[in-house]
């Protein structure tokens, strides 16, 4: 069984359905990016996955078992708002980690303090937002955990330290750690992640291996000289979304792009282009509402 398994997670806060039927898995050595607009259910998913909030329905397996206290020995969680103690300094936080975790690696901890240019004698209350994020990451990576759950791990960091976080994630993955992280920095996820889960209003709208998505998610753009009927494509299971602006037809394809190209080509368009979709474009086409008809008609 994969180190992180989430099955049909459901969670309501009163009338608000925070997550609905969210399922995904993260194998060992994999980095999974959890993406979505604010309020789409990323943090709720993390809290339920770690047992910090009780899910209404669904099953969670971490390292092959339901979340339980012993699990935290093998897991590092970096929440969005750091859970550091204001009155303690960095060295004291690392000392607590050393006592609580058998896997704590002091050499790695001091190397990481250097990487993030952190003064271990400085109290948390005197650290900037970025320095707090960095300290939480130093503690997390020093534990050499089997599972890492990171909510916005780059928030407040400068570009150099953001890059350092990516390098550390890749090293950890190469050692077999299963990592799930949320981030608004699509560029970071695009580099380091090998799989993504995109949430919209608490539901999974797109997920899978990133390279597999790169291979099959395409945008087909056709310009027609004669009037054409886009209706025939709206019910096509291979097509996720149809847009029409004047004489231009845009098809967001998520299966069999070559077959769709042939079908559109048979309608004799004046031009026909197959465009690759990077993660940012995939994200927007998965999360965006279709444009109102009034903006499209012209």
């Amino acid at each position, binding site marked *: 069984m994969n180190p992180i398994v989430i099955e049909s997670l459901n969670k309501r806060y009163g009338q608000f359905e925070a997550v609905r039927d969210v399922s995904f898995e993260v194998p060992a*050595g994999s980095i999974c990016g959890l993406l979505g607009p604010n309020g789409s259910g990323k943090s709720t998913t993390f809290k339920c996955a770690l047992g910090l909030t009780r899910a209404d329905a669904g099953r969670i397996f971490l390292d092959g078992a339901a979340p339980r206290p012993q699990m935290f020995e093998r897991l590092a969680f970096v929440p969005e708002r750091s859970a550091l103690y204001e009155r303690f300094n960095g060295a004291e936080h690392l000392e607590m980690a050393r006592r609580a975790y058998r896997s704590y690696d002091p050499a790695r901890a001091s190397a990481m303090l250097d990487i993030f240019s952190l003064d271990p004698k400085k109290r948390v209350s005197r650290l900037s937002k970025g320095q707090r994020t960095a300290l939480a990451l130093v503690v997390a990576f020093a534990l050499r955990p089997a599972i890492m759950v990171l909510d916005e791990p780059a928030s407040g960091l400068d570009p150099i330290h953001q890059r350092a976080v990516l390098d550390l994630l890749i090293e950890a993955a*190469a050692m077999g750690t299963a990592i799930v992280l949320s981030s608004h920095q699509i*560029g970071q996820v695009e580099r380091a992640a090998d799989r993504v889960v995109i949430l919209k209003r608490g539901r999974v709208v797109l997920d899978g291996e990133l*390279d597999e998505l790169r291979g099959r998610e395409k945008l087909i753009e056709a310009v027609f000289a004669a009037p054409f009927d886009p209706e025939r494509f709206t019910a096509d299971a291979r097509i996720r979304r149809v847009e029409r602006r004047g004489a231009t037809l845009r098809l967001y394809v998520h299966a069999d792009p070559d077959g769709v190209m042939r079908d559109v080509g048979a309608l004799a368009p004046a031009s026909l282009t*197959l465009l*690759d979709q*990077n993660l940012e474009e995939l994200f927007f086409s998965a999360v965006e509402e279709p444009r109102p008809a009034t903006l499209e008609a012209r």
Partner: protein
Amino acid sequence: MFGSEDVPGNFNVDPRSGVPLYTQLIDQVKRSIAVGALAPGERLPTVKQLAVDLTVNPNTVARAYRDLERDGVIETSPGRGSFVRGSDVAQTRRTVADVAAVALEAAIRDARSIGVERPALEALVERLIERWYSVGERR
């Protein structure tokens, strides 16, 4: 010769492109072999080393190496690493043809997309072959 001493070849991937990263890597390894930047028997970086160097996921590198091994381009021996397969004229020719096919297909797709008709494209290709191959022969 180019690139660092530790990493033969000069690999790079563009995560912003919509092309799968493992496909990009496979293409580059084949290119490096085709132009001789990677010699037969030469050792490739480990999965971890290349993942860290390129800042890409180790699974992506592992996938590229698996496919290259399946295609007979490299061989991996447990504990020793991955190596470019010995010089086999037919294999090298196939590798070169694979690299060229990727580039040509993109060009033909582009031409098709802007409505170039088949006879016109064929004439154009003929002319371009004439130009580039005669330049080579004059040297």
